[in-house]
């Protein structure tokens, strides 16, 4: 390669017009940096959202069907018993419905019912609201992970989520007052016996800022025994989501819309695809900068050809083939592209890292293949654009009439 005189000529021409070539290469640098850092940002965003969502992706949530239910707001403190025998008119999932779900979806994973209410709470004179869950003892043991302390055994003990614990400065042994005296609600004091591990966003159970008490204690306070707010299915295999959903719907919704099954994997798909659409859009905008770069490379190459018409004439007249002249100018474009893309790649890593840190908030996915792939990809696009915009000038140079070219001054 060292004695490729054609390559030597390209390199010398670039060196001779160093500033001009540098400016053209900078266009490519900017384009490559823009595309790859936007791409990396998108990839990192997708990866981090996916990670957050995948914790809840294996969950099906079965809620009372919207079908014929008559509005039915939150149940009061007393809790109205079911109207008559038919439960499908009510805003809860009945025991028999739960058993149907367990029977049909049990083979796909763990099926458990929860009660849920929102309640005023007070901790040493600080008032607020919290979600209260009621769960069966055996479900608590298999679904909840205790970070500190233990699961509640008595009706006056609860476990709480870590966010709630932090917000109210609660520790093991702290007391929480449930209910608001001013609103004539039954006031009840409970004791924190355990604090849960952080769980993150979730569809089945937002335990991080909730209070969870045993079923008996919950029913004792809010009533509505065997009238579950929702039934969750934790799938053993996420691929079963559709099969399980179908099984439940076939069983319960045969006559009318008794229950609604929410498949969180579908939701995750739509969120991921939204993020990637966004990324593509942002990258397309970044791509415009490469278009600008292409124009500048084209311009530089045209100038190079115009300035070197006489030289091209000489080269041709002493026996340089058209294809060799073509190659000379393509080399020039490729060198500009490679230099630009190389510098661009290094800068993408630095700038991309910063962008990801600022926009996504974490760089823990930065060095994963899905993210770094955008650097070589953007480099490739950059070099390709250089070659593309160098082709016409090179073709023109190669096809100059040697006599005409020699006459130029």
């Amino acid at each position, binding site marked *: 390669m060292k004695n490729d005189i054609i390559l030597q000529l390209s390199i010398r021409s670039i060196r*001779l017009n160093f500033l001009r070539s540098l400016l053209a290469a900078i266009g490519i640098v900017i384009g490559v940096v823009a595309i790859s850092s936007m791409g990396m940002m998108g990839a990192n965003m997708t990866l981090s959202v996916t990670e957050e969502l995948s914790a809840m992706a294996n969950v099906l949530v079965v809620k009372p069907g919207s079908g014929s239910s008559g509005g039915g707001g939150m149940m009061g403190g007393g809790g109205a018993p079911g109207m008559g025998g038919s439960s499908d008119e009510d805003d809860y999932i009945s025991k028999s419905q739960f058993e149907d779900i367990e029977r049909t979806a049990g083979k796909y994973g763990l099926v458990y019912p929860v009660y849920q209410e929102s309640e005023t709470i007070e901790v040493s004179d600080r008032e607020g609201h919290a979600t209260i869950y009621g769960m069966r003892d055996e479900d608590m043991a298999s679904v909840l992970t205790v970070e500190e302390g233990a699961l509640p055994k008595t009706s006056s003990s609860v476990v709480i989520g870590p966010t709630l614990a932090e917000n109210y400065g609660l520790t093991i042994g702290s007391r929480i007052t449930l209910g608001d005296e001013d609103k004539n609600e039954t006031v009840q004091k409970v004791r924190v016996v355990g604090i849960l591990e952080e769980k993150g966003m979730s569809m089945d159970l937002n335990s991080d800022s909730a209070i969870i008490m045993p079923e008996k204690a919950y029913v004792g306070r809010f009533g509505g025994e065997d009238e579950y707010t929702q039934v969750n299915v934790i799938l053993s295999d996420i691929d079963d989501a559709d099969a399980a959903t179908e099984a439940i719907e076939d069983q319960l919704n045969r006559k009318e819309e008794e229950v609604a099954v929410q498949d969180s994997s579908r939701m995750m798909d739509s969120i991921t695809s939204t993020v990637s659409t966004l990324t593509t859009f942002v990258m397309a905008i970044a791509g415009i900068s490469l278009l600008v770069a292409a124009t500048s490379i084209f311009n530089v190459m045209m100038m190079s050809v115009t300035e070197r018409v*006489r030289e091209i004439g000489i080269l041709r007249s002493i026996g340089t*083939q058209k294809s060799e002249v073509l190659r000379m100018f393509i080399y020039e474009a490729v060198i500009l592209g490679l230099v630009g893309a190389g510098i661009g790649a290094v800068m993408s890593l630095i700038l991309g890292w910063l962008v990801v840190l600022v926009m996504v908030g974490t760089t823990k996915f930065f060095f994963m293949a899905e993210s770094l792939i955008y650097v070589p990809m953007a480099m490739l696009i950059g070099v390709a654009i250089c070659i593309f915009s160098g082709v016409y000038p090179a073709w023109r140079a190669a096809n100059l009439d040697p*006599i005409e070219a*020699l006459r130029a001054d």
Partner: protein
Amino acid sequence: MKEVPVIELADVSKIYPLPSGDVVALDHLSVRIDRGEFVAIMGPSGSGKSTLLNQIGGLDVPTSGTLKITGRNIRKMSDEELTSLRLNAIGYIFQKFNLIALLSAYENVEYPYILKQRCNDTTGRVSRLLEDVGIDRRMAEHKPAELSGGQQQRVAIARALVNDPAILLCDEPTGNLDTKTGAQIMEMLKDLHRQGRTVIIVTHDPAVGDQAERIIRIRDGRVEEA
């Protein structure tokens, strides 16, 4: 059997179509040059001397008529073949030197060698040629812009010779030089002729023309009968 002429033009015309009307640079011209001849082409300015030389050198294609170089009809040759012909069989020395500005004197001479051999010169041929034309080692490192006109023309001669061409075409090789340097260049060309090359030289200087074996005079694109 008679030997095939190196150059044979039969009824060759070259017309440049211009908006202001066609310019007939060569007008039904027939010329024959044999191997080993030393020919001078003379004529007033604009008579078509350079145009003729460009046809002979395979740089241009006649509008009509037949042109054969070493027996081959150039009309039947592709651009690639014509380019190879220029590289291998023809040494062209231009009035304006036409060296490559990006390359040093040495590299200018080496350039056609590399094009042909596909490798750098390790035989010392380039250095020897430069020495022969009076360019020393130090000067050979200079770019054309740093050389005098006479030095540039010497480099151009060395370049024309590097691939050992059978035909040497010179368009006013002494036109831009002083009398003394011009005379030295002429001595070199005569030397090359003595070595057996066909030398064709365009000039309007009678002193130069007289040194040739034969003079072809042209006027208005036609050969003037002597």
